[in-house]
């Protein structure tokens, strides 16, 4: 992964983790293309990156759930940047705080945002990178995707599905030299989790971003951040189902 090898696309650029990643990448000299839902916020982010680091930053509007718009977004992005080396997918949402089993519309939206939208974008980017014979796709998943929990299984199943998809994509693309990177953060102190967890237990977006960029540069396959979550989830995964189903975890 090199700064001069093409732009880096950040999908869901205004998420706090994405912003922190963008800042680090900008200091390293990467050219950035921000895909965000809120164009004003993307614009501010671009101004910030330019003013702080003199970075080259472009913005495009991304509506993750509007799958029909993704092909033209990708075409326009390629036209604008010429060369794209990789994509970091950083959007996602927890969905409803309590899961209403009968509310399929809401459930579907959460699944679509956290899984289908990721696949939709991968369908645009993966073929391009495969042909190019280099590059990377990195997706911010979640530890919630490791096991279905009572509290957040809709979100968790989408993240889990994404991890499986990426796992297969990784195998498919490795011969072309394209890396597929699955990032699994634990609790991160962002707008998504503010008030849900004591701040002490949540990692800062900046520290998570540092680990993510390191993982991108090394081309790691799958990693947890902070590292301790690897062991926490190992413990979570080995609990027998008949016990786990009774547990209320926070």
């Amino acid at each position: 992964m090199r700064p001069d090898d093409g732009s880096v696309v950040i999908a869901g650029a205004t998420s706090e983790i994405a912003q922190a990643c963008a800042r680090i990448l900008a200091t390293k000299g990467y050219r950035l293309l921000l895909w965000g839902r809120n164009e004003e916020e993307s614009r501010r982010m671009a101004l910030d990156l330019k003013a702080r680091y003199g970075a080259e930053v472009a913005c495009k509007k991304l509506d993750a759930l509007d799958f029909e718009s993704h092909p033209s977004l990708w075409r326009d992005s390629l036209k604008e940047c010429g060369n794209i080396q990789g994509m970091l997918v950083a959007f996602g949402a927890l969905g409803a705080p309590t899961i209403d089993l009968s509310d399929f519309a809401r459930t579907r939206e959460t699944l679509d945002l956290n899984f289908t939208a990721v696949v939709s974008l991968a369908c645009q980017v993966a073929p391009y990178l495969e042909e190019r014979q280099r590059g990377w796709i990195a997706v911010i998943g979640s530890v919630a995707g490791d096991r279905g929990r009572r509290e957040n299984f809709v979100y968790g199943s989408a993240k889990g599905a994404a991890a499986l998809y990426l796992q297969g994509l990784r195998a498919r693309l490795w011969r072309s030299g394209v890396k597929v990177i699955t990032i699994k953060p634990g609790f991160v102190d962002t707008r998504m989790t503010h008030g849900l967890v004591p701040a002490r237990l949540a990692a800062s977006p900046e520290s998570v971003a540092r680990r993510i960029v390191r993982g991108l540069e090394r081309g790691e396959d799958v990693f947890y951040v902070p590292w301790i979550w690897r062991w926490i989830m190992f413990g979570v995964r080995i609990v027998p189902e008949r016990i786990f189903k009774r547990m209320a975890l926070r």
Partner: protein
Amino acid sequence: MVELAGWGNYPRKSCRVVRPAASSELSAASASSMIARGLGRSYGDAALNSQGAVVLTERLDHLLSFDRETGLLEAEAGMSLATLIPLTVEGGWMFPVVPGTRFVTLGGCVAADIHGKSHHRDGSFGNTVLELALLLADGTRVRCSRDKRADLFWATIGGMGLTGMITEVRVQLQRVSSAIVEEQIRVGRNLEETLDQVETSSAEDPYSIAWFDLLAGGDAFGRGIVSGGRFVEGERRLRPLQIFSVPVEAPNFLLNRPALRAFNHLYFQMKAGALEKRHVPMGAFFFPLDALGNWNRLYGRRGFIQYQLVLPLSSVRDGFRTITDVIRSRNCPVYLTTVKKFGPEGEGLLSFPMEGYTMALDMPWQRNLTEETLRELDRIVIDFGGRVYLAKDARLAPQTFRTMYPRYPNWRAVKISVDPEFRFSSELSRRLEMESDAT
């Protein structure tokens, strides 16, 4: 709900906090009462709100523009000087006015109309602000400056966040040659002598601050060290800040009178014996206490108050003598005293500085510090024509405040015009009974 406090750790209030992650997430409809909070460096209750919401601005941290040719900078109000200064200095620019710590937000600098070691020449932060963007109580966003809605501009500067939420700040920086300051030390062996040295330093040095020892007994009372500085040529990179942080609130006995007396004595000897002139990194010169993270925890669970007053030029000597007499006779635990000469008053309607001398007294909430004593200090300050700084205050009474701030009625008129329902309110505004009609 989170328990929040100012830097003095007094008072502590349980507050509902919201933390918008982007400018577009700001809403005046968050609550019926809200106040913005930056890095929480005001000492008292200015950034607390137990009756509504406290809006944390730390994630509103986009730098919108920085022109390295002209030194014009515009940024969201949650950006801190700690983040900005290394950036600007590298480009050869610096904020003309900075407070005693780099851990303040731009919004906080405006709301408290902070002053620094350069006030005698450069005035307060408001002098360096060109334009502000505000979110008003009715949800509208406005920009104000000296030419556009000037009344709102000067009500917001020093307005303790009560005119609306400051969202963006545009500042004019000044050129600097390096990140190195040449510091000149002057010594006073007693109160009068140290005040003389403050006078001299203020006449000669662009940056000047004095430390006084009010615990020393006898003739040494009021001895002090005056530190004057100026930028010199050198490298433009700030030294990285190594912070040793106080991890927990210290036990109440840690900071005590004999210990502080001994510390003061050692500090005085050390500084008085040091080289008269030397080069120091600008971080150490402007923000000496930043190296000790969370130093306010040294004051323990009960916390402390910083009583910062200013007296007009004509009454400085008499006023300071009267105040220090009270401190001595009541045996007040004054653990840190700084003094500075101020330049002319600014145009912020609730701004603190006036032409004269300011004195800041750090006092732990201990037996020898009583509200009665503080009221007596208030009376002295009023008698000598001075006032107390709201950004450090935690206990001024409503009437005392109104006497000290004669431009309050003008400020209140602007406040009512943009926020008649007092949607922007805080523990401070309620304590000072700003919502009531009394003027």
